[in-house]
C-alpha cells in the first residue's frame, strides 16, 4: 500500500455537508463523535475545511441550489476523496423524490462510495459503514498490487 493511502486510511479526516437535510442525520453524525460512540478511535476527525478532508459525508436530498455548491465543494477536495451518502434522502431522496426542487439523486451528481441507509441511520450503522469503506479501499489497494 502506498504511503499516501496508508496515511489516509489510518486517520481519515471527515468533512460533513448537509445539502438541505432535516438535520436529523446531522445529529446522528455528531453523535458518532461523542464519547459514547467515539469514532475517533478509528482516527476520524471532523475537518474544518474541505481542503483538509479525505472523506465527504453528505446528508440530505440535493436541491437545485445546493447541487451547485456540492459540485464546487467536490472539486476543491484533495483527491482521492471518498464520498459517503448518509440517510435515505441522500440515497434516493426519500419523500422528496417528486419534489420540484430535487431533480437528481446524489449519485447522479458526484460519485458515491458508500451508502448508509436509514432515516436517520443509527450511529452504529454510520460507524459500520465507514469501517466497511476503509476495508473496501484497503482491498482495492491490495488488488492493484
Amino acid at each position, binding site marked *: 500500500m502506498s504511503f499516501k493511502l496508508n496515511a489516509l486510511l489510518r486517520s481519515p479526516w471527515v468533512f460533513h455537508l448537509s445539502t438541505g437535510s432535516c438535520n436529523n442525520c446531522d445529529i446522528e453524525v455528531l453523535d458518532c463523535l461523542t464519547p459514547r460512540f467515539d469514532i475517533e478511535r478509528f482516527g476520524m476527525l471532523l475537518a474544518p475545511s474541505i481542503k483538509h478532508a479525505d472523506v465527504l459525508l453528505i446528508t440530505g436530498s440535493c436541491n*437545485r441550489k445546493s447541487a*451547485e455548491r456540492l459540485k464546487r465543494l467536490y472539486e476543491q477536495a484533495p483527491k482521492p476523496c471518498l464520498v459517503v451518502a448518509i440517510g435515505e434522502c441522500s440515497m*434516493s*431522496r426519500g419523500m422528496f*423524490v417528486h419534489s*420540484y*426542487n430535487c*431533480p*437528481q*439523486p446524489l449519485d447522479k451528481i458526484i460519485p458515491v462510495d458508500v451508502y448508509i441507509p436509514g432515516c436517520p441511520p443509527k450511529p452504529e450503522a454510520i460507524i459500520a459503514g465507514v469501517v466497511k469503506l476503509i476495508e473496501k479501499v484497503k482491498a482495492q489497494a491490495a488488488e492493484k498490487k
Partner: protein
Amino acid sequence: MREEILKDITGRFKDDIVDVFDKSPSRVYIEIRKEALVKIATYALRQIKARFNIASGVDCRHHFEILYHFTVEDINLLISFRVKLPVDKLEIDSLAPVFEGANWIEREMSELLGIDFKGHPDKRRLLLSDEWPEGVYPLRCDYEEWDKKAIRDRGI
C-alpha cells in the same frame, strides 16, 4: 382585554371586515377586504402593539388566500387577517414598506405562488435557483414538471 381588542378592531374597521371567525380563546380569523390591508395591519402593529408573526399564502383553486398572522403576546391571542384574491387578479399592496418583517415572506410568496406585491422595495428571487424559468410557480395546484432532465424514480 381580548374582547376589548376584538371589539376595537371590528368597530373601527367595520366597513372593511368581511367576516370574523372566533375559533378558540387564542385564535381569531378576520377576513378583510384587500384594499384595507395596509391600514388594518399598520393599526394592529402600531396601536394594538401586536407582533407580526408570519404570512402564509394558499392556493385554493377558486381563489388565493393570504393569511397575515399577528400575535398579541401579553394575552396570548393570535389574530389572522385573511385576504382573498381572485385567480385572474393576483395582486395586493405590499406591507414591506410599513415593516421590514414582511419583506422576505412576500418575496417568497411572490416566487412560489406568483402573487404580485405592489410597492415591494426588492422584488428579487429569494429561494428558487437561477435556472428556474420565469412564470412557473411551484406551489400552485396546477404546477407541472418543466424540467425534462429530472429523474423521478428511485433507480431500482
